[in-house]
Each structure stands twice: as structure tokens, then as C-alpha cells.
């Protein structure tokens, strides 16, 4: 993909203060006064002020993007600070949107910051996106990503996308007018439970900067019309190998939303499309979920139970429930776990928050252990209610 026309018209002028501030941009011939004026006039919306949103917002602000919108409803948690560098220690418990705004204002008070402290969904996304030139995605789940994609296609907005997991990152620019969209790359989301989130699998903090910096670079290029945009290409970063590779992303003529015969012509129900939990797991958990209080009672009265922790070894090491045996969920899905079950005891499964244990419970029920149960809220609920002196993650 060669140059695209600049996305934004230039502002009328830069003030003396702005010329001083942005001088290192202004003396790059490709950016110059013209490019900086375009950035000044630009309105960029960042969905999420978390891992990817942190570096993205900070650098967009420093670069002089005139208006930055932030969609974020969460509050800052201590476990965010390992990577979400827009927030600080004193922000714990504060609204992420407000904390992000304060950091932006400290870096560049000339930026107009709009806070949208709401959960992005089908009812508000169109009105929100319509106010901006370009959308940067820093969300952490498939449902929101498909929602953002579809809204961007319907409104013909460029969608600067990035995604991270452990040591791997991916980035691309989706813009159906000029190339493929997210659905062209990944037509369907994985079934729930198949792909772990960062909360389950972890993420190297600095990976956010590696991928966020690609997103900001692409945003600036699109806004000012310089360089070759990452449209129709997927950048794949491997931090362990320290490699960047790219593969072609083709526009899919059969794409459900931007193909020749689209079947998605308006926003759909994205929670249902992606599913928070599989149907089998939901069925298994119904009437077979106990509370941590019940579990404590069973443990205290020596009830004949086998308590199994289905998380990963690293998670077990951080915190565990006394008396639990570790058998990761994968072993249930592959079948190897079943022979480790004690048929003389009632099986009680738990994980971090209750999603993975529900998936494993479906397997255990299917194997004939009909009275097996899982613990709602998992080890997080256990620490919260039973052993508050233990750490959470």
C-alpha cells in the first residue's frame, strides 16, 4: 500500500508556543508545519486506557494530537502498574480515564481530552466513533474488538489495531475502504476458554510499549498522510526472539461485513458472538457451583472431597487454597486429567475466577462424575472472603 491522502486537514496555524514545543517534528521535512497542523486538528479516540492505551495516549499527546478521546470505565488496580505506565501509585482506586487525563495534561496541556467513562457497546459506539477521525484499539477482549471493527467499517474509519499476549504482539491497520478489516484477518473469534487472556496467561509489561509504539506511528502516518501505512499487512513481534515479521492480509471477498455480499449490515450482539463462557460450561456450572464459604465448611468438616486447582503452575505458586491439587485445565481438555481423579471422593474444581473451572467441570461431568462442583469466584473469592492476608493477582 503506497501513500494515502492525509486523513485530516491542517489547522489554520501553530502558536509560538506550539512551534517551540513541536520543533523536533517541524524540522523533519516529511512532517513540517503542514503535518504538525494536521496533528493539531486531529481527533483520535483510544478505546481503553490500559496496557496498550497507556503508551499510545502518552505518545499521541506528546506528538500534539489536538483532541484525544478515552473510552474507559475501569479503575486503576495495583496489578495494572506493571505495564500501564500512564497511571501511578497514587492513582490506585481512581478512575482510569481521569488518571490518564491527568498524565496527558502533565505531558501536554495543549491537548483537549474527552472522557467517555462508559462501557463501549452497540448502543453508544456509532455516536462516539462519529466524533473522531481515527480509532486506536487498546481493549483486552474479542467481543469489543469485533464491535470496534464493525463500527469502523460501517462508519469508514481507520482502525489502528494491536494485540498482545505474554511475549507476542500483533499490529495492523484495518480500513475497509483501502484494504482488509479485522474480520478479513480473523473471521471468527475463538470459542470461550480456548485462548487465555492476559489476566490468565500474563503479559510482559514492556510488550505494551513495543506494540503501542507501532500503533502510534501508524496513527501519525495516517493523520498526516506520510509513509506507507500498515494497511493489508500484519506485523508480528516476538520479544523472545527479538524479531518483527510481516505477513500479507488480504481483503476477503467473503468477509461477513466488508466482503462482496455482506451478511453483517448493522451492529450485532458481540457478547453472544464471542461468548463469555461456552454453552457446555454454562450448563455444567448451573446447579453445580458452590461458594467459597461452602468450600471452607467442607474443608473444616473433613468432607470427602478432592479439591483440584485447574490453573497453571505459575499461578498456583503465587497463591493457592490449602489442600488443593494442581491439574491445569489443559489436561482436562486433552483427557489426561481424568485418571488422576479419586472416584471415592466428590470432585471440587476451582481456578482464578470460575471460568476455567466451569470448562473443566463440563469435562468431569461428561466423564460420569455427576456430583462434581466448581467454586464460584475461584481463588480470588477465597482470598477476598476467607484468607484476606494472601495475595491476589
Amino acid at each position, binding site marked *: 500500500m503506497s501513500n494515502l491522502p492525509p486523513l485530516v486537514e491542517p489547522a489554520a496555524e501553530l502558536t509560538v508556543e506550539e512551534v517551540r514545543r513541536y520543533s523536533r517534528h517541524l524540522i523533519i521535512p516529511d512532517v513540517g508545519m503542514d503535518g504538525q497542523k494536521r496533528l493539531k486538528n486531529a481527533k483520535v479516540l483510544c478505546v*481503553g486506557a*490500559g*496496557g*496498550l*492505551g497507556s503508551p499510545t495516549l502518552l505518545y499521541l499527546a506528546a506528538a500534539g494530537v489536538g483532541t484525544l478521546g478515552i473510552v474507559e470505565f475501569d479503575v486503576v488496580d495495583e496489578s495494572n502498574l506493571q505495564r500501564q505506565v500512564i497511571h501511578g501509585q497514587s492513582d490506585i482506586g481512581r478512575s482510569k480515564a481521569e488518571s490518564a487525563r491527568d498524565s496527558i495534561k502533565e505531558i501536554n496541556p495543549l491537548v483537549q481530552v474527552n472522557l467517555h467513562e462508559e462501557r463501549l457497546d452497540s448502543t453508544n459506539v456509532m455516536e462516539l466513533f462519529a466524533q473522531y477521525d481515527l480509532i486506536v*484499539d*487498546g*481493549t*483486552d*477482549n*474479542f467481543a469489543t*474488538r469485533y464491535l470496534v471493527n464493525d463500527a469502523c467499517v460501517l462508519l469508514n474509519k481507520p482502525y489502528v489495531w*494491536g*494485540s*498482545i*499476549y*505474554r*511475549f*507476542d504482539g*500483533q499490529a495492523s491497520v484495518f480500513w475497509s475502504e483501502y484494504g482488509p478489516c479485522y474480520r478479513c*484477518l*480473523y*473471521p*471468527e*473469534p*475463538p470459542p470461550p476458554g*480456548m*485462548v*487465555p*487472556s*492476559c489476566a490468565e*496467561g500474563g*503479559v510482559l509489561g514492556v510488550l505494551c510499549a513495543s506494540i503501542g509504539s507501532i500503533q502510534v506511528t501508524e496513527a501519525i502516518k495516517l493523520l498526516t498522510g506520510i509513509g506507507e501505512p500498515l494497511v493489508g499487512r*500484519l506485523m*508480528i513481534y*516476538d520479544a*523472545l*526472539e527479538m524479531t518483527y*515479521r*510481516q*505477513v*500479507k*492480509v*488480504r481483503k*476477503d471477498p467473503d468477509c461477513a461485513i466488508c466482503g462482496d455480499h455482506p451478511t453483517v449490515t448493522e451492529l450485532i450482539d458481540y457478547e453472544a458472538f464471542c461468548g463469555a463462557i461456552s454453552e457446555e460450561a454454562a450448563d455444567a456450572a448451573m446447579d453445580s457451583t458452590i461458594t467459597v464459604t461452602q468450600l471452607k465448611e467442607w474443608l473444616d468438616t473433613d468432607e470427602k472431597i478432592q479439591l483440584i486447582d485447574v490453573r497453571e503452575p505459575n499461578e498456583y505458586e503465587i497463591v493457592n487454597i490449602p489442600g488443593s491439587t494442581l491439574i491445569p485445565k*489443559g489436561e482436562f481438555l*486433552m483427557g489426561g486429567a481424568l485418571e488422576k481423579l479419586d472416584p471415592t471422593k466428590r470432585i471440587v474444581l476451582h481456578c482464578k475466577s470460575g471460568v476455567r473451572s466451569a470448562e473443566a467441570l463440563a469435562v468431569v461431568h461428561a466423564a460420569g462424575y455427576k456430583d462434581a462442583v466448581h467454586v464460584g469466584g475461584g481463588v480470588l473469592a477465597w482470598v477476598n472472603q476467607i484468607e484476606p492476608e494472601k495475595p491476589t493477582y
Partner: protein
Amino acid sequence: MSITVRIPTILRTYTDGKAEVSVAGGTLAEVIDQLETDHTGIRARVLDDDGKLRRFVNVYVNDDDVRFAEGLGTAVPENGNVSIIPAVAGG
């Protein structure tokens, strides 16, 4: 053993942490069969129960998405490379 297969982090539990493994040539289907022989369990992460490529995992032969070529029938040339790229949503 002349084809290189790139394994994403999320599937390296099957390859003892190796980021790259080598297999002999053939079609993509044959490459995946060999992967399964050497690293049991990996096939089910790439193919569904009907043996089709999963829609949230992209497989590239020499940087071209096989969905736009011959799918599992795509020939992998000598010294070619195969990349498995699963969808991730972390942010």
C-alpha cells in the same frame, strides 16, 4: 527435514518451548500430521473436530495466508516456512 514451522508462544507448551521446529515437506495437511506426530496435541489447536482449519488461527506458507490459497492442500515448497498465527485479544 527442510521446512521450518514457526510456533507462537501460546502453542509452545507442545514443542518444549521451541519457537521453531523442522519437518519434511509436502502439503500443509502433511506438515500438520508430522507436527502432531512430533508434538502430540498441537493439531487440535489448529484444526477443528472436522479436520478443517480453525477460523481464529491463520496459517501462512511463505507469508501467504493459506485460506486464500489451497487451504490444507497448499503445497509447502522445500526450504519453505510455515507460520501459525492465532488470534489473541490482550491489551
